[in-house]
C-alpha cells in the first residue's frame, strides 16, 4: 500500500487556473475524502492522481516515487467512476478480469481472484450477466469488484454512490467503509455529500475553488471549522452566521450585530478588532428563559419535522436563524421565544479574511 504526497501542484486549462500550489499528504492505509461543492476541483485532483489529467506543475508521489508523468497503466491505482464505466460488451466476470488480463496474470489466478472478489461483494450469481442486466447497486458492486481484484496501491473513488437512491447509498456507504477495513489500503474518495464525507473519512479534505480550505478528522472539521466556507459547507442544516462588531455593553466586551443582537466576546481576543462573523450550529441554539443573560428575542416563523429532530426557524432582528431541537410537536407558530447560542460552541470568524479567530 502507499502514501500519497502532492506537492506544489498547479493545474491550468489555458488561462483558467484550477489549482495553485496545492499540497496534501495522505498516509498509508488512510481513508481520505475530498469534499466540496461542484466545480471545486476535487474530481480533477482525483483524476490527476489516476493519471487521467496532466499536471501543469508540481509533483505527485506514491510511496516516495514520483508518478507525476506516469501513464495511468503504470501507476498501479484502481478507480471507481461516478457512472461505473463498466464495459457494456463484457460480462461481469470479464469486466472484473480485464485489468488482470491486461497485466498478464495467469488464467487460473484470474479465476480465483474474480471468484474471491465476487464472493466478497455478493456477485457470484451474476458473473455471467452483462452490465445492462444488473441493477444500479449491482453495477456499483461490479465497479468496486473490478477495482479490488487488482489489489492496487491506491483506490480512487469518484462520487461512486451519487447515482444510487438514498437507501442504497446508505448501505453502500457502509460497504465501502468495511471494504477499506478489510483491504487495509489507501483510499481517496471524492464526494460533494458532506454526510458521506463525515461518515466515511478518516480525514476530510474540504475544497473550494481549487484550494484546500481545511484538512482534518470529521469531528475536528465539524467542531472547529477553519473558516466561514467550511463552517457553512459542513453540517446540515447550515451554521447560522451573523455579521457583528466588537462593542462594550454594561462595561463588558461583547460582540454586537447591526440590529442589536449581542454575543459574548470570544475568549481569545486576538484579531477581534475589526468586523466579525459569529456562527453557531442549529443544534447549539437553545430556547431559554427571558431573564437569561444575553437571551435573544425571536419570533417562530417555520417549523419542520424531519423525524429525528424538529427544525424551528426563528426571526431575530433582521436575521433568520435555524434551531434544531429533539423531535417534538411545536404548535407555537408566530409566537415569541428567547433563544441563546451555546457560548462554548459559538464560532468567530474574521469578516475580512473569513478565517477562524475564536
Amino acid at each position: 500500500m502507499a502514501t500519497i504526497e502532492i506537492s506544489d501542484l498547479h493545474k491550468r486549462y489555458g488561462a483558467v487556473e484550477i489549482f495553485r500550489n496545492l499540497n496534501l499528504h495522505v498516509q498509508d492505509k488512510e481513508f481520505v475524502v475530498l469534499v466540496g461543492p461542484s466545480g471545486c476541483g476535487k474530481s480533477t485532483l482525483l483524476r490527476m492522481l489516476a493519471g487521467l489529467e496532466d499536471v501543469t506543475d508540481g509533483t505527485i508521489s506514491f510511496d516516495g516515487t514520483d508518478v507525476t508523468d506516469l501513464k495511468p497503466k503504470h501507476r498501479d491505482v484502481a478507480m471507481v467512476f461516478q457512472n461505473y464505466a463498466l464495459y457494456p460488451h463484457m460480462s461481469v466476470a470479464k469486466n472484473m478480469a480485464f485489468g488482470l488480463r491486461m497485466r498478464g496474470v495467469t488464467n487460473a489466478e484470474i479465476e480465483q481472484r474474480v471468484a474471491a472478489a465476487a464472493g466478497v461483494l455478493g456477485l457470484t450469481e451474476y458473473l455471467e450477466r452483462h452490465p445492462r442486466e444488473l441493477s444500479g447497486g449491482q453495477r456499483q458492486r461490479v465497479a468496486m469488484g473490478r477495482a479490488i481484484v487488482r489489489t492496487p496501491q491506491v483506490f480512487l473513488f469518484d462520487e461512486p454512490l451519487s447515482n444510487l437512491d438514498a437507501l442504497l447509498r446508505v448501505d453502500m456507504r457502509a460497504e465501502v467503509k468495511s471494504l477499506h477495513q478489510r483491504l487495509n489500503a489507501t483510499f481517496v474518495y471524492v464526494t460533494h455529500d458532506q454526510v458521506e464525507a463525515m461518515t466515511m473519512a478518516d480525514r476530510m479534505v474540504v475544497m473550494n475553488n481549487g484550494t484546500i480550505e481545511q484538512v482534518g478528522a470529521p469531528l475536528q472539521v465539524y467542531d472547529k471549522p477553519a473558516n466561514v466556507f467550511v463552517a457553512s459547507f459542513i453540517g446540515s442544516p447550515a451554521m447560522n452566521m451573523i455579521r457583528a462588531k466588537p462593542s462594550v455593553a454594561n462595561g463588558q466586551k461583547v460582540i454586537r450585530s447591526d440590529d442589536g443582537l449581542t454575543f459574548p466576546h470570544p475568549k481569545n481576543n486576538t484579531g477581534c478588532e475589526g468586523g466579525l462573523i459569529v456562527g453557531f450550529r442549529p443544534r447549539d441554539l437553545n430556547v431559554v428563559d427571558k431573564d437569561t443573560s444575553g437571551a435573544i428575542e425571536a419570533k417562530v416563523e417555520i417549523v419542520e419535522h424531519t423525524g429525528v429532530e424538529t427544525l424551528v426557524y426563528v426571526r431575530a432582528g433582521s436575521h433568520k436563524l435555524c434551531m434544531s431541537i429533539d423531535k417534538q410537536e411545536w404548535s407555537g407558530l408566530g409566537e415569541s421565544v428567547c433563544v441563546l447560542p451555546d457560548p462554548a460552541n459559538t464560532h468567530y470568524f474574521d469578516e475580512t479574511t473569513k478565517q477562524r479567530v475564536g
Partner: protein
Amino acid sequence: MRLSRKTRLALRKAGRNAVLLCLAAIAMIYLIGPVYWMVSTSLMTEKEMFQVPPHWYPHDPSFHAYRAIFGFNPELVAEVNARGLQVQNIMPALWNSIKTSVFVAFATILIAIPAAYSFARLRFRLSLPLLMAYMMLRTVPSIVLVVPVFMVLRTIGLIDTTASLVLVYCTFTVPFSIWLLQSYFKTIPIELEEAAWVDGCGQLTAAIRIMLPLAVPGIVATFILAFMASWSEFLYAVTFTKTLNSQTVTVIASSFIGIEAARFDLVLAAGVLSSLPPFILALIVQRYIVAGFAAGSLKG
C-alpha cells in the same frame, strides 16, 4: 342526435388514425412504387410494356430479359444488336461491381476508423478546420473532377482498372465516413476508455479492445453506406472504364439505351439484378444500420 363525449373522442381518434394511415400509404407508394414498377416491367415483353392502357402487372410474365443479359437468349441478343445496341453478359459487370464496392467499403473503414477516432478523442489544433475541409470536399460536384482525375489516372496507367474506381470512390466515401464515425465515437463515454487506461491499457489497446467493439453498429452502417455509394456510382465508372475488365453493372445497364434505340426490359432487368446485392446486405445488417444512424448521426 347528440353523440356522447366518449363516442366523439373515439370518432376523432379513428379519423386521426385514418388520416395517418392514408399518409403512410402514400409514402409507401412513393417509396415502393418505382421498385414495384421496375420489377414488374422487367417481366413484361416489349409489346406489353407499351400497352395502352398500361398493365399494372405482367399478364404473361417472362424472364426473356434476364436470360438475354445473362447470355441465354441469343435470338433476343441478335435482335437487339441489329438495332445498333450492344447486349453484353452482365455477370462480369456484377462481379466487378461487387469487387469494387467491397474493396471501397473495406478501404474506407480502414482509413476512416483511425481518422475518426483521432477527431473524436485527440485534442489537436487543426481538428475542426480539417473536419470542415472534409465536409467541403463533399460539396465539389463530381463532374468538375472528371477530366483532371481522368488525366491523372491515364498518366499512372490505371484507366480501365478496378483499382482506378476504388481509388476515386474512396475520395468521396472516406470524408463522409470520417464524419459519421467521429460523431459515433463521441457518443461512447470517454470514461470507458479511461477505465481501460487505469486497468492497464495504452490508448491504442483501449481503442481496439473497448471502443471498436462498442462502435460496431456505426462501423457497419458506414460500411454499408460506402458500399452503396460505390455500387450505384455511374459518372466516374462510365468515364474511367472501357471493357468488361472493369466495367460495373451501372455502365452495362446504361449500354442497353442507345441514341436511336432502347431496350427498357433489359435496362430494368439489369436494374433489378443490380439492386439485389445492396438490398440483401442491408437486410442482413439492418439493425446495425438503424443503431448506427440513431447514435452516430442523430444524437451525435
